[in-house]
């Protein structure tokens, strides 16, 4: 079988993503975990690029790396006493959790096997080059996803106010 460049790129980015993800959940140092998380985000962004969703890739970078990751690291630094603790970072039920995760993966794998013809679903459809416009119109079109969009904005506002109220110093 011939390995195409796309597949190489995919495998590389998938490798980065998964490896970083595993580091995230296993690293003892939380900061390393956070950095690995950023790496994971990057991998996902690359996957988006491979899926020809450039906008999403950029948003992924802006939002996850520029906002969430930095938030997380900031939180780690604020709770810095926990930062350089070198005890086991997992609780007693970690092996149960591992078993469960593996079982879930196995189950999903089996489910994929169930689906007929999943193997030969390859991206043959032509991606519309005005997909970004479609996206935008879909969000402002009352017949499509205007309401979820507005709700999302409201949700963001609520989250903003809520986090300020929660984390703010109580007078």
């Amino acid at each position: 079988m011939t390995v195409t460049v796309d597949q190489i790129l995919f495998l590389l980015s998938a490798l980065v993503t998964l490896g970083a993800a595993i580091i995230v959940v296993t690293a003892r140092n939380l900061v390393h975990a956070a950095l690995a998380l950023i790496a994971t985000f990057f991998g996902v962004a690359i996957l988006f690029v491979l899926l020809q969703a450039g906008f999403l890739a950029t948003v992924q970078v802006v939002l996850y790396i520029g906002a969430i990751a930095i938030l997380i690291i900031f939180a780690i630094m604020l709770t810095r006493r926990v930062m350089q603790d070198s005890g086991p970072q997992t609780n007693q039920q970690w092996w149960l959790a591992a078993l469960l995760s593996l079982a879930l993966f196995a189950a999903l794998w089996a489910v994929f096997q169930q689906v007929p013809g999943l193997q030969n679903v390859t991206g043959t459809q032509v991606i519309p080059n005005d997909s970004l416009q479609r996206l935008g119109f879909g969000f402002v079109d009352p017949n499509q996803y205007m309401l979820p969009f507005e709700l999302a904005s409201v949700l963001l506002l609520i989250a903003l106010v809520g986090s300020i109220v929660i984390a703010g110093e109580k007078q």
Partner: protein
Amino acid sequence: MVPLSWYLVLAAALFCVGLYGVLARKNAVAILMGIELMLNAVNINLVSFWHYLNPQVMAGQMFTIIVLTVAASEAAVGLALIISIYRRRNSVIAEDMDLMKW
């Protein structure tokens, strides 16, 4: 060409890893990270389905963006909660927050 199943398997793996993180990590921040991983896995699924099944309809990407919004809110509020708990109890170990136990 890369078949859809690869993306699905990757997403599943990522999801399981994130789940392990959520279930096994002590630190509340780490748990949040696990949640982010799971959300990313979901995003991958959404986008790949969009790309492979019907690129004309942008529903997949739209849902991804909604998920991103939720993730952002969740991170903000969750971290705020963690910080305020840290202020009160000087700990971010999830197991220490068991006021609800018998």
